[in-house]
């Protein structure tokens, strides 16, 4: 083990941290010197963009999804190794560098396995086929008599075998088969099986390399003063005290470039980051916030959303004449559900090393979710071509969507260009909490009615700022945010309302920067949808599970809910002062349901237990599905009962973990996770467990106390 670790370190050093993970059984893959020492005149052969086999038999798999903790370092290579017939432990895994040949490389949208399920397996199967054909030719036997296993091709009848290394040279000369035969899932040896993640040992010994750990020769450090109102303009800079700080080199004007807008900023450059932070504190910057004191303000924003709830929105869909039927309905409800702005707050703050070289080329070392997007953004910002950008993706110390927004990388580019040195930018926690981008705060305006004890009418009016609109392309006056529509329409929720239903949208803008946050809008609108269905169930005097099953014809949804009911003991009698609540939501093509048990305690409740069920179709590692769902429970509960982000007159009211609390170990309830094996196409795993958590809690609180929570976050110790 020791030797392996040593060689891995050397390897990381040699390759400039472009790689991480599983350099097991190989020494110095890209370091020419050590490579020559071990295997002279070795030939590296790219069988296809994802598989490199050298003539010494070393196998390298390229992972096109950065690992932010979701397990892509295991999941993606597993898809490849399964089809290639190699043992994961013998394989070097490197992170893709954003180059076009690897296709989309963004870890986001819970996409790694579901999007790569076929292409990466095909890449592995194609390579296996090429190697097998090569062996058959060499032995002059029919290819059908040969099989691949554990990094070699075998001819059973003659007892011959050749390793992939011995075959790689000739195999690489073949055409890559476009439609190789994939394994039958019943023959899977890796996919769907419990396997320990091989990246874990480095993560418990301090050896794993995150963005913040990168050092490059000649590097200096920067700390940045950002505009408190996000987009304010600099009136004056007094850097006289800052420059007196020992080790501070210079103070420069810089800028923070978000996808939709560039803001002014000031950077303090020093030979160490502590000095840069001291310089930042000593710097006096006066800002002109202009109108941003009004437009970067959460109370004002939410007031507008509640106003919008009084009017009709733009319809995503309408089945039956909802408006008329709602007006005529006898048993009906109308209410609003609010979710706050939230920071991602990964424990590793935003950071990046950039080196803008004399020839204009740029090298980046950073914890980014999408190396291909990073190249795109750096090219657009620096006005250079993709071949002039090299991106070295490190491990990510948490991301949750934040590190697919590259403002911090572009800051490092700007500063490096100005000072003509490689620079490491590290945001303080205060930068992270006060600057965003955030999950947007949203409002669900809900209307519904029941007839003869059944929920038959439903309207979900989604109101708020649009990520598509603000971050990407703007939304036309009459255009609805399509991402939200996909999430909350009946095509996704699968609820069938016999009388009438409507799903609509109103856009309310803000200058608070927003972006996706774990599970994106599902984390907002799952709250309104699932609590309101619960309210309608009570209006219909029905058990909330039975009321849902009555309007959910979809077999997969039913199976998930029935499994949840069984595992959580839904029908068991509860002690007085105890209540259970449930919720179900489909996101990223996976269905997850959650049941939470709470009991009354003083002025509030205590969370006793959380049971979560997920149907994510085919999956790679059941333990990782559970781990991700555990994480979703914790993040979902945190979003429900801890702190939201609020801005008042252009200033954030939270700054660090004492004001933006996240759940701690002593607050953990008992948790239980169950996977429904549906054998469906792979769905997402990293996010779908989150959306049902908050509404299950809200519904449990109602069951235990009769108090209906409609605004997140709420204080469970004091329900008011």
């Amino acid at each position: 083990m020791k030797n392996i670790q040593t060689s891995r370190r050397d390897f990381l050093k040699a390759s400039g941290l472009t790689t991480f993970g599983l350099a097991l059984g190989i020494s110095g893959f890209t370091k020419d010197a050590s490579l020559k020492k071990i295997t002279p005149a070795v030939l590296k052969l790219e069988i296809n963009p994802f598989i490199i086999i050298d003539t010494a038999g070393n196998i390298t798999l390229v992972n096109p999804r950065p690992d932010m903790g979701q397990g892509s370092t295991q999941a993606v290579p597993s898809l490849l190794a399964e089809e290639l017939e190699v043992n994961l432990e013998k394989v070097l895994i490197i992170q893709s560098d954003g180059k076009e040949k690897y296709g989309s490389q963004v870890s986001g949208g819970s996409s790694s396995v579901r999007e790569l399920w076929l292409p990466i397996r095909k890449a592995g199967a194609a390579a296996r086929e090429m190697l097998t054909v090569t062996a058959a030719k060499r032995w002059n036997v029919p290819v059908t008599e040969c099989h691949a296993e554990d990094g070699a091709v075998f001819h059973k009848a003659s007892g011959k075998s050749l390793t992939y290394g011995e075959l790689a040279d000739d195999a690489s000369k073949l055409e890559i088969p476009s439609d190789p035969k994939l394994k039958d899932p019943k023959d899977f040896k890796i996919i769907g099986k419990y396997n320990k993640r091989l990246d874990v040992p480095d993560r418990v010994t301090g050896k794993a390399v995150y963005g913040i750990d990168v050092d490059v020769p000649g590097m200096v450090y920067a700390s940045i003063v950002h505009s408190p109102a996000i987009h304010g303009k600099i009136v004056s800079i007094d850097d006289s005290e800052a420059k007196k700080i020992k080790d501070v080199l210079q103070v420069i004007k810089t800028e923070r470039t978000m996808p939709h807008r560039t803001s002014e900023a000031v950077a303090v450059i020093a030979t160490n980051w502590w000095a840069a932070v001291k310089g930042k504190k000593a710097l006096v910057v006066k800002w002109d916030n202009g109108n941003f004191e009004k437009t970067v303000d959460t109370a004002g924003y939410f007031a507008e959303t509640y106003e919008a709830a009084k009017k009709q929105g733009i319809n995503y869909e309408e089945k039956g004449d909802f408006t008329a039927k709602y007006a005529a309905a006898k048993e009906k409800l109308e209410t609003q559900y609010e979710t706050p702005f939230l920071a991602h707050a990964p424990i590793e703050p935003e950071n990046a090393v950039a080196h803008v070289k004399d020839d204009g080329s740029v090298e980046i070392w950073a914890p980014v979710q999408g190396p291909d997007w990073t190249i795109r953004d750096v090219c657009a910002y620096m006005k250079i071509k993709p071949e002039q950008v090299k991106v070295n993706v490190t491990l990510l110390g948490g991301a949750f969507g934040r590190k697919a927004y590259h403002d911090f990388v572009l800051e490092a580019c700007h500063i490096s260009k100005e000072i003509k040195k490689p620079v490491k930018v590290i945001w303080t926690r205060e930068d992270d909490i006060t600057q965003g981008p955030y999950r947007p705060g949203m409002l669900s305006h809900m209307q519904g009615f029941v007839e003869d004890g059944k929920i038959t009418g439903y309207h979900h009016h989604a109101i708020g700022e649009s990520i598509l609109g603000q971050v990407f392309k703007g939304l036309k006056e009459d255009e609805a945010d399509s991402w939200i529509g996909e999430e909350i329409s009946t095509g996704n929720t699968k609820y069938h309302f016999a009388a009438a239903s409507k799903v609509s949208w109103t856009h309310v803008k803000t200058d608070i920067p927003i972006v996706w946050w774990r599970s994106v809008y599902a984390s907002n609108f799952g709250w309104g949808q699932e609590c309101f269905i619960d309210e309608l169930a009570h209006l219909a005097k029905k058990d909330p599970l039975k009321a849902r099953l009555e309007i959910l014809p979809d077999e997969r949804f039913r199976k998930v809910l029935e499994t949840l009911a069984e595992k959580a003991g839904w029908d068991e009698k509860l002690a007085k002062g105890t209540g259970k609540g449930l919720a179900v939501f489909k996101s990223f093509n996976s269905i997850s349901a959650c049941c939470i048990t709470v009991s009354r305690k003083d002025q509030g409740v205590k969370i006793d237990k959380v049971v979560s069920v997920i149907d994510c179709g085919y999956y790679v590692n059941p333990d990782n599905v559970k781990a991700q769902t555990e994480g979703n429970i914790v993040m979902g509960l945190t979003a429900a009962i801890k702190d939201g982000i609020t801005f008042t007159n252009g200033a954030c009211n939270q700054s660090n973990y004492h004001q933006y609390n996240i759940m701690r170990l002593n607050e953990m309830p008992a948790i239980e996770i169950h996977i429904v094996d549906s054998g469906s196409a792979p769905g997402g795993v990293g996010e779908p467990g989150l959306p049902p958590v908050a509404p299950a809690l809200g519904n449990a609180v109602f069951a235990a106390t009769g108090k209906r929570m409609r605004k997140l976050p709420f204080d469970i110790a004091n329900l008011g």
Partner: protein
Amino acid sequence: MAAYNLSVNGKKVKVDVEPDMPLLWVVRDFAGLKGTKFGCGMALCGACTVHVNGQPARSCQTPVSSIGKNDKITTIEGIGDGKLSIIQKAWIEEQVPQCGYCQSGQIMSAVALLKSNASPTDADIDSAMSGNLCRCGTYDRIRKAIHRAAAEMKVSEAGIGKM
């Protein structure tokens, strides 16, 4: 600037830094031990936890000038005597880390707990570990790994001393 002779993981480290520089940045950027992490800068998250004379300390709030000449600093790199310790093995068995960024601090807090209490109850774990945040939400596995390590220590000849 002042010169400090520190003992880090049993090795002498000489640094020339400002007296108010937190031990965190001394360890990371001057001693080159990157396993200790920055999270909040206010001792709120525990990612920077190291041991000073065996006691857990938040290195982001520990000025290097407060470290005495005879004080022994231990970081995640100094745990386990060059091998995986019982507690690190327990972390692997339970597959605790997701992103892993906070886990150096978690492990340092857990080692300190087990050194002072070989059979911690859930309540003991709550009080020792609640200063360490994990945004990935690995708390349930951390608790299991601590119980596992405690059980392993009882049957291991190495015992707590080698942890």
